[in-house]
């Protein structure tokens, strides 16, 4: 029941908002994973990013797609928490507990073992509009655990202009999602955490060249 509720909201509200109100151009759709375990990793500038990434998947796969978000942000209030869990289908990460010995990625690993497709923003934060921060190691640790799972890089352009961090005003501008060829831990040669992340970040940066020029400062 909950599953269908989430699917219905995403199909009848999220997708029309992304395509008809904001406008979304998709390049390289054939690279998207169709089944889990898989990871989709994207740059992060705006809450709109999640909306855009969820709108990329066909409705059949949608119930298997789970965005990963920060518990301290998305579980702040009861309403926000309910929306995050039941409408967005978010897996919360308790990043404040880092270093306590607790496995922060336990829920993510369970979901992946269960055949889910995780949507991850390796920057860990939205940062400045239309700029990329350093990547956190979580994505590499998940890839190490599932060495054959595809990690699909996605570059999102324009979401930071639609709704920058700190703004509550949504101003529609077309966005572009450029999807690259998936990379795997197993085909990274000596699959090493920092190499993997560096490679992923370079790949996403390179994808930005396929997006149209954006003049906004």
């Amino acid at each position: 029941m909950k599953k269908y509720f989430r699917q219905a909201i995403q199909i009848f509200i999220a997708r029309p908002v992304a395509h008809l109100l904001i406008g979304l151009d998709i390049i390289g759709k054939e690279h998207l994973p169709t089944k889990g375990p898989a990871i989709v990793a994207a740059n992060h500038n705006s809450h709109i990013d999640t909306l855009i990434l969820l709108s990329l998947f066909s409705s059949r796969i949608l119930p298997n797609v789970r965005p990963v978000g920060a518990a301290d942000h998305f579980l702040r209030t009861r309403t926000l928490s309910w929306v995050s869990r039941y409408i967005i289908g978010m897996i919360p990460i308790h990043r404040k507990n880092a270093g306590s010995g607790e496995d922060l990625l336990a829920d993510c690993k369970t979901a992946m073992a269960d055949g889910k497709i995780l949507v991850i923003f390796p920057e860990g934060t939205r940062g400045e509009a239309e700029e990329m921060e350093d990547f956190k190691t979580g994505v590499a640790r998940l890839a190490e655990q599932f060495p054959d799972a595809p990690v699909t890089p996605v570059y999102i352009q324009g979401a930071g202009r639609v709704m920058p961090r700190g703004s509550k005003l949504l101003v529609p501008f077309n966005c572009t999602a450029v999807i690259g060829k998936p990379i795997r831990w197993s085909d990274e040669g000596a699959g090493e955490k920092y190499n993997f992340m560096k490679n992923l970040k370079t790949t996403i940066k390179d994808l930005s060249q396929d997006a149209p020029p954006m003049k906004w400062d």
Partner: protein
Amino acid sequence: MNWLMNYLADIPGPLQIGFGGLFALLVMGSILAVALPKFKPGKWDDLKPRMQSWWVMCGLLIGALLLGWQAFTVLFTYISYIALKEYLTLAPTRKEDRGVVLFAYLMVLVSYGAIWINNYMFFLVTIPVYVFLASAVMMALTKRTDGYLATIGILQWGLIVCVFNLGHVAFLMRTPAAEVPMAGAAGLVFFLIFVTQFNDMAQYMWGKIFGRHKISPNISPNKTWEGAIGGFVTTGILFVVLAPYFTPLTFWPSVWIGATLPVIGFFGDITMSAIKRDLGVKDTSLLIPGHGGALDRLDSLMFTAPWYFHMLAYFALDRF
């Protein structure tokens, strides 16, 4: 089924033939889109998505024309919004301008609101006068002065072509039926859009077959004098021949419009090409598979719509 037959029989004759002809063209194009890639693989690959998009666009247009001015106004409100958003996505704006951009989007509703309440004077002063002034003030109030004049100019150019100029298409749908006994207001609008798109296609075909001398290689390398003139003459003749069935124009006025409208459409095309060159893009978005963005399809109509509207108003219509 009976009501449907009655409904279809009530459509004016010229429109029935116009829609039928369009349908035949679509079927023919679709057959070519399937057949041609089999003979010459690779060369005609983009014809299939192009034809599929034509089906969708013609379907939306004919559907809205048949449903009446309300549906047509809603469709064009959305088309103007899509065009303006596409334009403002590519054109340079500043971080502080998000509020003014949102204001511009809302003014699309006000401008089409004037069409909805059938108030021509209100329509005339909304975008070119009061939105012009208000957006300039709003942008001044953001307090950032570097790039002010360039950005307000960019925004206002977009509002004129995407909202005010395209709005004339929707306003033509409000022409009283008594003034256009031949094919109704829908006939006027259908004829404008058909002729404008036909002109684009005729220029393309003439250029493809006879094109030698480039008109402006640094703006639009595919445009040739042979293509342009061949297109103008073909479209002009088509206009004069069909005008009596779709418009209340008499012979000489129809010759005048037939001679000028295709040239104006060409100007719209080349103006948008110059803008795309400046912005460094080939297509304005990927919205319409096989065609590019909304602006790539609407560029000529943004110029022909006001001209057609004012020429009809001058020569034939009492309403405007």
